[in-house]
């Protein structure tokens, strides 16, 4: 029997039994002012066995019934069971493809699960004695009986509103090979969704969903007090601040993390991580301690990570209020671990390539994005299962906005030969509209506000969670102005910090701050699958012919035949069309050759609108939405039109055609190489 087996089978339980769960550390007991309701509080002791890739843990969950109903059934998420076998709902929704894309038949080390070894309901005034409870798996979303990601604990008593229930749960988590945000890669262990996690009890009952391919999470706020025992040589990072670290005689160490007012706890441990620390000054709080855990081959990117965090802390703080937690840990994930670009409270993962050109915003983009989730998901904690746009969409907008203030747009990048970057510095990816191609491709598959697992497919989930809401918010900002938009978002953030707002709360906040009813906007965007596409269909301008025929003179038809005028008057016609389903009012600008500009506002209701002018100058071009306020417009190229006959030859066409010609010549010559 190996030492690790010996430890895991005998010594570990004994250690727990002797240490016990220290009751004086029950959260919410005087460690500062509570920022949240602290309904779900966890005290966990866990031990990582790097050989077996398992975590054995004992957790005491102190849960407060904040609803107005008594309950004797308690729902727990066992997210890790999504990777237990290929019949879980998660894998089934991925067409039975287990996601380890490079492996045809993953062996047992690839799969992961969380096994609940025992559940007890601890002392309660209504319990005759601490008692075991019954558990069962349920499948509230799809009835897949083989899915074990939601467990129900049946207690022998009812827990009335306002009362507290305490559960002691022993569990063993076998980490999967890095997959979809969690798992191991070599000696890198990223533990996310690794422990039994109680669901949220709402006024209409438990809100518990199975783990789906296209959903994230939802949980109550609380205090997490977690002790992690890992090999002594491992560097550890986790949610919250490290309050203690002690060496154990068995070549391990135990580190304890504590954090109030968060709704999840994730951690990482590995021997290759390099720990870097900096402090960032704040106005209302002590300096923020930022810990960066870098892969050694990425150490040269340390400064870029910290600069990105500094920008993010500044802009998010200015716009939405200061980040209130004392720490932030940023993890540069191990290669191939599939744990990049993810957010957990006070703990985020980035991701980059060792060969990272400066003009390409990686690692900056992902770092700013995941930091932004501290606000949108972390503090404003919407239900990610049911309304994923509220965090992903809002955060995508906020992240792009912060990046726009901090950086020049990212340059176009393509990697050749497995990683050598080709950077086109003259081609910049605009922050606001980089999502448009996705909206064009998948924007009509679903109405936007919809539970994550009910979207048509993963592409639709991504469009409706990230891209479309981002473009909606950019459009809203351009319509109402930057200052008013920030006021809206500040209000929403401030009002719903440490709560669980819904789309209805967001809409109400927008209407309240803007002082106007916004159904016309939201009905067509949030609650619709229509797209927006305005275009200039035709733009023509020709000289008016001389008058000829009978024209009334003193009430009598009189024949006239004018000579051609020396200065022609032009008859201009512009037809604007609405090709998409969204009906927004829109500006139309006509620019004449003499410099005159005529601007009209079209309500956009009917399918088209025709404009006529008689002017002493030819029309040069017409453009709909000239300031490009409507970033939802999926085709900005058809928004303008030069008058026919005014467009040949077009130098830009020949410029790019000649480059293409050169590209083809080189390709042909290279292919000729083989023969």
């Amino acid at each position, binding site marked *: 029997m190996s030492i690790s087996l010996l430890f895991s089978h005998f010594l570990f339980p004994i250690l727990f039994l002797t240490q016990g769960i220290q009751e004086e550390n029950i959260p919410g007991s005087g460690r500062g002012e509570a920022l949240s309701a602290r309904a779900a509080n966890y005290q966990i002791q866990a031990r990582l066995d790097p050989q077996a890739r398992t975590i054995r843990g004992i957790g005491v969950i102190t849960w407060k019934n904040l609803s107005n109903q008594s309950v004797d059934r308690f729902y727990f998420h066992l997210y890790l069971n999504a990777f237990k076998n290929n019949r879980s709902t998660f894998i089934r929704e991925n067409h039975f493809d287990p996601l380890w894309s*490079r492996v045809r038949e993953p062996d047992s080390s690839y799969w992961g699960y969380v096994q609940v070894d025992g559940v007890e309901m601890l002392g309660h005034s209504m319990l005759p004695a601490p008692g075991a409870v019954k558990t069962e798996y349920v499948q509230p979303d799809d009835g897949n009986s083989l899915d074990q990601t939601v467990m129900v604990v049946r207690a022998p008593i009812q827990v009335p509103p306002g009362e507290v229930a305490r559960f002691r749960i022993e569990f063993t988590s076998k980490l999967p090979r890095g997959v979809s945000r969690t798992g191991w890669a070599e000696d890198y262990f990223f533990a996310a969704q690794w422990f039994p996690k109680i669901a949220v009890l709402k006024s209409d009952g438990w809100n518990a969903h199975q783990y789906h391919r296209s959903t994230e999470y939802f949980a109550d706020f609380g205090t997490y007090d977690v002790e992690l025992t890992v090999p002594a040589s491992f560097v550890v990072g986790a949610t919250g601040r490290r309050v203690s670290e002690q060496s154990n005689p068995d070549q391990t160490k135990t580190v304890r993390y504590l954090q109030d007012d968060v709704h999840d706890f994730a951690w990482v441990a590995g021997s290759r991580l390099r720990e870097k620390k900096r402090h960032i000054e704040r106005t209302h709080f002590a300096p923020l301690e930022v810990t960066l855990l870098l892969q050694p081959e990425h150490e040269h990117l340390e400064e870029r990570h910290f600069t990105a965090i500094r920008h993010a802390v500044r802009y998010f703080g200015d716009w939405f209020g200061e980040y209130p937690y004392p720490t932030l840990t940023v993890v540069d994930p191990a290669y191939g671990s599939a744990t990049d670009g993810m957010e957990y409270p006070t703990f985020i993962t980035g991701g980059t390539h060792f*060969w990272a050109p400066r003009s390409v915003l990686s690692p900056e983009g992902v770092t700013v994005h995941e930091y932004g989730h501290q606000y949108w998901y972390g503090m404003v904690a919407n239900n990610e299962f049911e309304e994923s746009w509220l965090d992903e969409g809002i955060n995508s907008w906020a992240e792009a906005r912060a990046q726009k203030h901090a950086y020049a747009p990212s340059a176009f990048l*393509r990697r050749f030969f497995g990683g*050598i970057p080709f950077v*086109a510095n003259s081609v910049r990816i605009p922050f606001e509209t980089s999502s448009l191609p996705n909206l064009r*491709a998948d924007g009509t598959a679903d109405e936007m506000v919809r539970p994550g697992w009910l979207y048509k497919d993963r592409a639709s989930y991504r469009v409706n969670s990230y891209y479309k809401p981002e473009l909606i918010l950019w459009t809203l900002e351009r319509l109402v102005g930057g200052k008013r938009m920030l006021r809206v978002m500040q209000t929403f953030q401030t009002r719903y910090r440490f709560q669980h707002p819904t789309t209805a709360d967001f809409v109400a906040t927008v209407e309240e701050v803007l002082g106007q009813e916004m159904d016309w906007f939201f009905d067509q965007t949030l609650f619709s699958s229509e797209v927006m596409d305005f275009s200039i269909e035709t733009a023509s301008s020709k000289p008016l012919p001389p008058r000829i025929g009978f024209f009334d003179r003193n009430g009598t038809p009189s024949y006239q035949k004018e000579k051609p005028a020396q200065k022609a008057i032009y008859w201009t016609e512009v037809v604007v069309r609405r090709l998409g389903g969204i009906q927004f009012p829109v500006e139309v600008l006509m620019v004449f050759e003499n410099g005159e500009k005529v601007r009209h506002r079209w309500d956009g209701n009917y399918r088209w609108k025709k404009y006529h002018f008689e002017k002493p100058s030819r029309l040069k071009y017409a453009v709909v939405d000239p300031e490009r306020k409507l970033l939802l417009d999926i085709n*900005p190229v058809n928004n303008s039109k030069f008058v026919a006959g005014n467009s040949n030859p077009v130098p830009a066409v020949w410029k790019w055609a000649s480059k293409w010609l050169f590209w083809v010549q080189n390709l042909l010559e290279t292919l000729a*190489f083989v*023969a």
Partner: protein
Amino acid sequence: MLRRNYLGLGIRLLLQHKKAVVFFYLSSLLVAAVLTVPLLQALQDSLGSSLYRETLLRRMDYDWWRLFQDRASGLVAMFSPTVLGLGPFAESLEILLDRSWTTLPRSLLATGVLYLLISSFFTAASLGSFAFDPAGTSIREFLLQGSRLAGRFFRIGILALATYVVLAAVVFAPMGTLESYLKQRASNDVIAFSWSFIRYSLVLLILLVTNMVFDYTKIKSAVEDRTSVVLSFLSALTLCISYFSSTFGLYLLVLAFGTAWVLVYGAVEYLIPQQSWMGIVGAFCWQQIFIAGRLGLKLLFYGSQMQLVLELEKPYRPLKLRDEVFASQSATVTGSLREGGDQSLQPYIRLQ
């Protein structure tokens, strides 16, 4: 003889056959132009009357490009910012090394085959002229050489293609599988990249050597007037193995010249402002100068390799492109070729 001397002789040979470069260049331009017409039309449709034409004159607009790509299909959908700078070289080389040319649009593949045939014909014409008319030829003679050797050069081309296909299936594909396997087990992205880089480098090396052998196959086929493709190939293979350092050294030297030429192109292209007709025309001219230079380099290489063959192969004396050769002997030979056709070919090789 030093490799640079072969190069020098190759240059002199090339200078005597400038028309070969012109033929190669015109075929490159015309074939590529055929593939440019669809893009030209698509660009005209997209930009012709839109305000984006102003933006696109200054720079590639990302929004526009993504929309253009979404709406395009087939060949035109391959238009991307990689047409800029050194992108064309990287992309075409990657297509070659990744064997992804099989996934290219049919129109491009068909035109590529056509180009191979044309290129093969002009290679035959060039090598024939180099071998038998080192002092230069008329256009008619040049084309006659091409038609005389084209058949065997096509067969060599087919053999080379078959070799490439076999290598792709037997060597490159397993290498790709191995690379994936190793990358999957790599502990970090540097190692993962290294596996890719090693794989690409090995594939490139194998292709270079293979290409070199087939170059000598063509040269031997022309110089020794061999009709058997297989025997020419075996003879070339023997030569390359026997004198690997000389043959491959010369190859690498020309490759270095080619790489330098690419870098010069990239630097100059970057400096040309392309926001007016003048700049656009200037950039186009520079691109075409580059292509002509690239093709010239290819022919220079053939010339140098031919000199190397004649130097190394005992039965045949090297062609000496001294002034007197051009002035007297070769002039005689050229004259005899004009009069007597094939009967003068063999004697010329043993002229010295």
